């Protein structure tokens, strides 16, 4: 269980500015919930790099190799036949199937890694019960930070975000 403080904004500019100031004031930013990707805030949050592209590369290469392997096995080893002296391993003609299936496998690997990195599918989440959270997928911006432990600090934080233009401040446990 983590205690979070959610600060909700109606304008992206204010939201970005508040996130920047909060970072400078050493608040521990945990996450942000926005109706579209906001790169400026992304940079303020510490997170490791996505592995999606690596997974896609590996998935694509493995599938392409497998496809070529099947072609090679079937045309050269299992059922070779000589048609006018043409080479059995006709690699230029064999390229398309590994290429197309490799791209498909890369897409599937990427999508799977995307779901794993996002922790999806997860239909129930404590945040969905928070009033006003549904606006984060529509037209409002929510900054989530670690709730300060001391009441005094919490009060300061509430004042800080109110001054920064937050329209709603909520404490939640997730």
């Amino acid at each position, binding site marked *: 269980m983590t205690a979070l403080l959610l600060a909700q904004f109606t304008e*992206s*500019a204010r939201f970005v500015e508040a996130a920047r100031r909060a970072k400078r004031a050493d608040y521990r930013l945990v*996450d*942000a*919930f*926005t*109706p*579209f*990707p*906001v790169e400026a*805030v*992304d940079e303020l*949050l510490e*997170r490791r790099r*996505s592995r*999606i*592209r690596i997974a*896609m590369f590996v998935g*694509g290469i493995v599938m392409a190799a497998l496809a070529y392997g*099947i*072609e090679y096995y*079937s*045309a050269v080893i*299992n*059922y070779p036949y000589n048609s006018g002296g043409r080479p059995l391993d*006709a690699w230029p*003609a*064999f390229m*398309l*199937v590994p*290429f*197309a*299936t490799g*791209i*498909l496998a*890369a*897409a*599937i690997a*990427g*999508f799977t*890694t*995307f*779901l794993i*990195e*996002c922790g*999806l*599918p*997860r*239909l*129930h*989440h404590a*945040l*969905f019960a928070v009033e006003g959270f*549904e*606006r*984060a*997928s*529509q*037209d409002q911006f929510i900054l989530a930070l670690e709730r300060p432990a001391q009441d005094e600090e919490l009060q300061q934080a509430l004042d800080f975000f109110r001054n920064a233009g937050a329209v709603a401040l909520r404490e939640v446990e997730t």
Partner: protein
Amino acid sequence: MSIAVIRTEPMPSEAERWTLPHARSLAAVNQLVAAPLYERGLWSWKTWWLAAAASGALTVGFLVAVYVVLTRGVGVWGVNTSSVWGFAIADYVWWIGIGNAGTLISSMLLLMRQKWRASTNRFAEAMTLFAATIAGIFPIIHLGRPMYFYWLTPYPNTMTIWPQWRSALIWDFWAILSYILFSIIFWYVGLIPDLATMRDRARSKFAATAYGALALGWRGSARHWQAYETLHLALACLGVPLVVSLHSVVGMDFAASLMPGWQETIFPPYFVVGAMYSGFAMVVCLAALVRWGFRQEGLITVAHFDVMAKIMLMASIVMGLSYATEWFNAWYGGDRADRSLLIFEFTGGYAPMYWALLFCNVLAPQAFWLRAVRRSVVGVFVIAVAINIGMWLERILIVWNTLSHDYMPSMWRLFLPTVWDWLTTIGSLGLFVLMFLVFVRLVPAISMHEVRKLVDEEASS
């Protein structure tokens, strides 16, 4: 001496051009896109039902035609000993061309940072899915023994035989299969954030549950968006070469043969451009219909039609150049069969169709040089319909001309379509329209999160 007064107007920012003022807020974008799904009372839906009834009837006709072809064989079509391919292959090439364009347009414009794609990519990608699915039906029903189509796959079988990997038809199978599945992933990934918006705006428990399940629990967190953007961009990068290879393979179905008019090195790129061309024309038609039907003038603006018309104009010039290259090579190559085929194209039994093709694909789009035409939605729509017809004529004539005018004069025979030919063709159009009508009723037809980003950038600039 007079001094010319030069009036300077501030250039509108890029984002401003792609939306009208009444749509320029996040709330307005959500409202405009979600209204057809959640505030159905705002529309009478009469036109929708009429269109659904008409396309439903055509779909039934299509199913009947497919049933007849599957049970009685391809002989019910107008195919004969010379023209062994007919409407089925032309329809296949036409649909797969349209099917290529959605992903091509969407991913290419994404990579080129063309922000106006935001309001067109969703239905362009949906168009791709439906068209590619329909395209996949035709190669199967054109087979003499369609029940054995699965022989195209390498599976352990009692005959101990394998597919012929050197055959363009095998390439076709894998390319289409990979492409359809890839398109579904690409489309669905882009849809997830919008499904979450629909979930959060739902007014009934059923809608909340259905959209919620499809949104997979998307919360729009910074982590989600980072992963989303990485994946979406990577998919776009892979989508472009996949599409180009797919339609090149369709071109090679013809070019890998030894027939006059088919055995041309120009075919793969010429087919890819043709696909983009007909696809753009279809996107324009759908954009005009979505705009008109759901009053989306605020999000699909005249500027969108202007820019798409410019792309079609460019493509029409490339197409014209491709046709001219074919003519030149036939003459310059000096081959008797090629020259004879060229004369047949302009003067033979299909000549009126060939002239109509040239008019629709090359001449009519030249009207787009005029700004007034590009900025008239009706004008762009009419020319786009003409291009679609022209591109279909091109596909059917690629098949017909060569097969009807082969090396052997004794084999020269025209193709006369039967009612089953027409029913499979027009019926497939009905199926496409029906799928699109269902789509606009169930899924946000415009990508909300991408338009939101566009609108926000405009507000902060």
